[in-house]
């Protein structure tokens, strides 16, 4: 059963300089899902994210939280921003304090929570991203990946229901990407709804339950990655197809069908497993 947590209804947004960043976008993000937002640079991903957190207000249309239109009053925003945590792409643009622990406490302190509760939530958030040991280090001595983790902790410390991450993998090396994937997976298992913007088609294909494809501010496609990312129009616009899907398709052309109950492998490890299983099947008479 789908259970809408955030919804955009016919949302359009024009920046003050006249640029149309979103154009009649309607889409739904369901509770507990992993959603990947894809699109070229300037497609409107960041603008859409700023709407989810109530920083931007649609020029027309409306944004809903659990089917109710957002309340843009001070109190309403306070509630929304404690529920929807937003992390920006560049960590240096969002870390305020030079001390890790202080920065993570910024959000919960803004919520006006009691000090003991803030302290508890900060420690839990640091633990969730594996930064407890670095809590007393100055931010400027951390690596780029560690700074990103501090940013995530800063959002987690507010105990949001939805985590919105703008290109969390950008600029990270493979090992750090893997670490971040593990963190996101843990958060998803704990019931958090996660939305990320990414340029990495392969990642979106393997990770997401749903994908949203934006093109010049318009919604191009929205749905299950295995369907959406294999559509020809989407492939043309994104200029690529997930590598795993391409390999499976090429193999099927030469008669090797890796389908397991109508389900094609979505990640590299799935693909390798499917090939190994197929080879074993071929070997047994």
């Amino acid at each position: 059963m789908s259970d809408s947590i955030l919804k955009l209804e016919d949302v359009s947004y024009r920046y003050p300089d006249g640029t149309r960043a979103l154009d009649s976008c309607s889409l739904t993000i369901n509770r507990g899902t992993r959603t990947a937002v894809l699109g070229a640079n300037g497609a409107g991903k960041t603008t859409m994210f700023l709407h989810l957190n109530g920083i931007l207000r649609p020029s027309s249309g409306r944004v809903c939280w659990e089917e109710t239109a957002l309340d843009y009053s001070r109190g309403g925003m306070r509630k929304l921003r404690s529920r929807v945590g937003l992390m920006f792409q560049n960590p240096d643009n969002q870390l305020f304090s030079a001390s890790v622990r202080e920065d993570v406490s910024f959000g919960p302190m803004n919520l006006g929570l009691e000090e003991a509760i803030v302290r508890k939530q900060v420690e839990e958030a640091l633990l969730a991203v594996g930064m407890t040991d670095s809590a007393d280090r100055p931010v400027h001595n951390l690596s780029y990946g560690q700074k990103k983790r501090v940013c995530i902790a800063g959002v987690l410390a507010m105990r949001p229901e939805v985590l919105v991450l703008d290109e969390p993998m950008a600029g990270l090396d493979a090992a750090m990407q893997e670490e971040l994937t593990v963190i996101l997976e843990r958060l998803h298992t704990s019931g958090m709804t996660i939305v990320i913007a990414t340029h990495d088609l392969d990642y979106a294909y393997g990770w997401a339950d749903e994908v949203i494809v934006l093109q010049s501010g318009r919604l191009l496609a929205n749905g299950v990655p295995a369907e959406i990312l294999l559509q020809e129009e989407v492939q043309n616009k994104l200029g690529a197809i997930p590598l795993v899907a391409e390999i499976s398709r090429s193999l099927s052309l030469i008669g090797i069908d890796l389908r397991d109950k109508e389900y094609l492998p979505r990640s590299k490890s799935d693909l390798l497993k499917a090939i190994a299983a197929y080879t074993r099947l071929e070997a047994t008479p």
Partner: protein
Amino acid sequence: MLTEQSAYTTRWRSVSPVAKGFFSLCGMVAAFAAGSPRTALLIALILSAATIFGAGIPAVRYLRVAAPPLLFLAASGLSLLVSLDFGSPTSAASLHLAESEFPRIAQVCSRSLACLTALLFLALTTPLSDIISLLRRCRLPDTLLDLMTLCYRTLFVLSEVVHETITAQSARLGYSTFTISLRSLGGLVTNLIVQVWQRSLTLHLAAQARNNDGALRFLENSFADSPRNISIAATAGGLTVLLAVMLP
């Protein structure tokens, strides 16, 4: 950066900033209470010994941090000592050694030196974020402290930008001749101004996203056995002041 490194790695990192701040304050009071240059120098010696041997700051690093302010002190001392005289009938201008002023200059310089060591003690043992929270407890205006917090953080972000820009400019021969260097420097400054402006906007967005509505609020670091540290610091500080008052 050296000060910064020391503050984070000192043996006294976990000592309550209140204790360190109080001891530093006592040092400054003692510097002013000192009746003679000799006493002021003794206070300076005690404070630097506390920093080097107590907090474990390497002596070489201590001297490197102290060198620039010491140079200023030496320059001002010299300028007080020497006076330029334009009124002499024999020559257009002449230099005079103000010998009669010597005791007063010695007093001023030794006192400044003692104050400097007191400040160095605090700066080398306490990270700025702790000093800011200490000042917050002293009820300094929030606006001032928020500015300090942002400046301190932005200092590192911007120094990285400057470093990267200079590298990128040098890679394209931006500093090969004097004229080109000047032009590159102009470009660097312009770029920096635009970046500061853009970053202030994104920082504002990030603050809003985390529910901020004005003042920057953070959790203060808690320090384990601060009552004990504070009493030790108070005793040590009190003794220093007493020493300064008692000695001639």
